[in-house]
């Protein structure tokens, strides 16, 4: 048995990550109902997974990463991810909830207050995934600014994409900084309820954050008392050096996308470099590293690959992804995860190709398989999402410490 437990998360997106996945669902289109999300997240919790993430964007989905398309044969339309997470919060008790939140077109103040509220609603299980808007077309939904238009050439290379979108990452870094300051803007013991003096709060334990950055300024404090975790978990997806730097500066978890074991090793070296460049002390502020894998899982050898092919046919093209795609049995996937893990990964965010079947294959087949090998928990311990990820209790930057 390994001494540190493997961390496992599932990324929920529409009907699954394969664009034709909706066609194999029992009730296609149910993904706009509450029951759909409640069922998926309670299933993930049954598998004792660390957390689920919820994809989101402020534009309609598209097969192209950089511009809208007019396809009518794939899932189009979505619900707000923070609100989905808040809805499932009281229906679950242990699993972490990490919605994606756009940082290019939103107000940093609202983002911070929303996630703090989610953490209160989930009693210390919240996080969020900051996401920049890579599609210039989304900017017209707001009419306040324009963002870089990526070309067909750009999108062939994740380094080129990141380079073109660099200002958006710089702004995202400011957003993360503001949310963290706002969460600290109330000290944990700010509420005193002192009937003798009639004071509800100790007014010296609330703080203006006085953030003035290159992109915006925010005065503070938050309107929401400090969330139970102090600092809810921040996780980001990264494929290139600029996003590695972004993660190294302000995130608690980074999702990376290697295609094999050697790739994992190389990427982690790049992440290490970014951490060093940011001057980050990993003891005080650990950075958990998860690899992403799209999974199609069936017990019978070959069945998952055939299932994916059928979906590819329906979709009219082979499904490819920014992350590795695995088709096989739960045992084979366990082999792969445990092998990749030795490169220094803390865990994996699995993207089920089609839900619910690839989700239940994870919770009911993969998890027991890993457990048999002593590589996965047999129960949820107590504590917050931060605790589960081994992130220390965060110090409040404004507390004088008495």
């Amino acid at each position, binding site marked *: 048995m390994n001494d540190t437990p493997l961390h496992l998360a599932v990324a929920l997106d529409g009907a699954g990550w394969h664009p034709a996945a909706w066609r194999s669902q029992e009730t296609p289109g149910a993904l706009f109902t509450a029951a759909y999300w409640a069922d998926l997240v309670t299933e993930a919790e049954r598998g004792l997974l660390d957390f689920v993430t919820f994809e989101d964007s402020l534009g309609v989905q598209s097969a192209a990463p950089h511009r809208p398309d007019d396809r009518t044969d794939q899932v189009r339309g979505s*619900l707000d991810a923070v609100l989905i997470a808040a809805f499932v919060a*009281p229906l679950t008790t242990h699993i972490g909830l990490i919605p994606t939140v756009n940082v290019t077109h939103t107000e940093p103040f609202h983002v911070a207050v929303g996630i703090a509220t989610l953490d209160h609603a989930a009693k210390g299980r919240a996080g969020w995934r900051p996401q920049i808007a890579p599609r210039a077309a989304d900017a017209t939904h707001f009419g306040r600014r324009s963002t870089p238009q990526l070309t067909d050439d750009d999108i062939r290379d994740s380094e080129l994409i990141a380079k073109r979108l660099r200002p958006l990452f710089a702004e995202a870094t400011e957003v993360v900084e503001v949310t963290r300051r706002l969460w600290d803007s109330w000290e944990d013991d700010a509420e005193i309820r002192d009937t003798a003096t009639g004071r509800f709060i100790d007014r010296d334990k609330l703080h203006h954050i006085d953030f003035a950055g290159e992109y915006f300024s925010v005065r503070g404090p938050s309107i929401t008392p400090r969330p139970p975790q102090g600092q809810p978990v921040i996780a980001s997806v990264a494929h290139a050096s600029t996003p590695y730097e972004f993660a190294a500066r302000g995130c608690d978890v980074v999702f990376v996308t290697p295609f094999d074991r050697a790739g994992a090793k190389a990427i982690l070296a790049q992440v290490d470099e970014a951490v060093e460049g940011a001057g980050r002390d990993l003891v005080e502020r650990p950075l958990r590293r998860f690899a992403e894998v799209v999974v199609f899982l069936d017990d019978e050898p070959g069945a998952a690959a055939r299932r994916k092919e059928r979906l590819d046919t329906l979709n009219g093209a082979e499904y490819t992804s920014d992350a590795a795609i695995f088709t096989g049995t739960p045992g084979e996937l366990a082999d792969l995860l445990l092998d990749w893990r030795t490169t220094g990964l803390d865990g994996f965010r699995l993207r089920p190709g089609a839900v619910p079947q690839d989700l239940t294959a994870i919770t009911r087949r993969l998890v027991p398989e890993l457990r048999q090998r002593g590589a996965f928990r047999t129960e949820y311990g107590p504590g917050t999402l931060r605790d589960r990820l081994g992130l220390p209790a965060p110090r409040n930057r404004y507390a004088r410490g008495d």
Partner: protein
Amino acid sequence: MTKQIHLAAQLPAIHNVTVWSDPRSTSQIAVDNFVHLARTAERGKFDFFFLAEGLRVREHKGHFYDLDVVGRPDNLTMLSTVAAVTRHLGVAATVNATFNEPYEVARRLATLDHLSGGRAAWNVVTSFDAFTGENFRRGGFLAEADRYTRAAEFLATARELWDSWADDDVQADPASGRFVPSEAGRFAHRGEHFDISGRFTTPRSPQGHPVIIQAGESPAGRDFAASDAEVVFSKYNRLDEARAFYQDVKGRLARYGRSPDDLRIMPTATVVVADTDAEAAAYADEITRAQVSPQTAIAHLEAVWGRDLSAYDPDGPLPDIDPESESLVLKGHSVFRTGRAETARRWRALAEERGLSIRELVIEVHGGQTFVGSPRTVADAVDHFVQSGGADGFVFAAHLTPGGLDDFVDRVVPLLQEKGALRRDYTGTTLRHHLGLPPLPRTQRTSGNTKEAS
């Protein structure tokens, strides 16, 4: 026929309604307290649960105001949680139209309506001040006079976004392989405040549009309510004032081609129930004195006078000096925005006439508790208020969090049901239905445009 009473519950959070000094009053932010109050309201067959909003922590004389409860959630997020643990109760979020953008707000409200199965409402407010603006990218960019033109265009734009998907757009037909038409969500809006276009992400929700609530006081606010809202909140909970407000606002509806029955008017109210009228009166007095502590009395006076009055005795007479014209010592509090000189004159006259001390005066203008008495007395008073044209119902703000409405629901609601003035059970699933408002017509897609279904 007996007019049906519409009830809502509010977890009041900030302001001095909450008697936090009472040990039965617990956290203003713990999720279990929101759930408790919402479930109480649902047990009482209320129409909806409501959360107010203020986007900046209030400051008083250069410090954070510390006498009232402070700290509140993001409304839509918390109400999504509340929706998960209730079945029928509406969930109403106050969301500001100045420090937000239509695309995101329309999307979040449509999401709440989907997740709750058609129970969402939006209280459209217009706080615009530069003080609040300091928390946002654009700062305090809006002139006071423009707050309702922006709000009206904001709401009109949100309606265009909600209408950009027809009811039948999510086809999700595996046989044909068609999920949605390519036109679903397309919109273009060009106006004074918003110039936006593209595709809206969220399919049409069960109610089509969430129920629209407004709480304006000025003529512009009342017109906005009359033209666009389905519920109006007010602060008028004394029958004479309430009737005047009711008639004024309902009288404005015809101008917008609407009938008086298209709009519900619901003043904010408090309620104190005990075994006997005398016990209730004594308890109400105790609550009011806790809400208006000596410190609170001075602070409210300072807010009106716009200057430091800490040297004054709360049990002594009002200051004979005049209010400062400029300085606003209390920031982030909508109540004291305008007319301070006139308010001060009125307060002084009232205090002189009745021989009131500072604290007694503030208690007097604060108004005390709205409905006080035995269950029977309260039921009669609530019913009379509605039947005699003062309101269509009330938003009850509980002075104890979260148990402040337990007595009302357990002891008064059954009496209102006996009178036939309150439903014994929910008869529909949407908030629109609870409010007695007709559903929006279903929309169908015809050659690219959404149309009302015939």
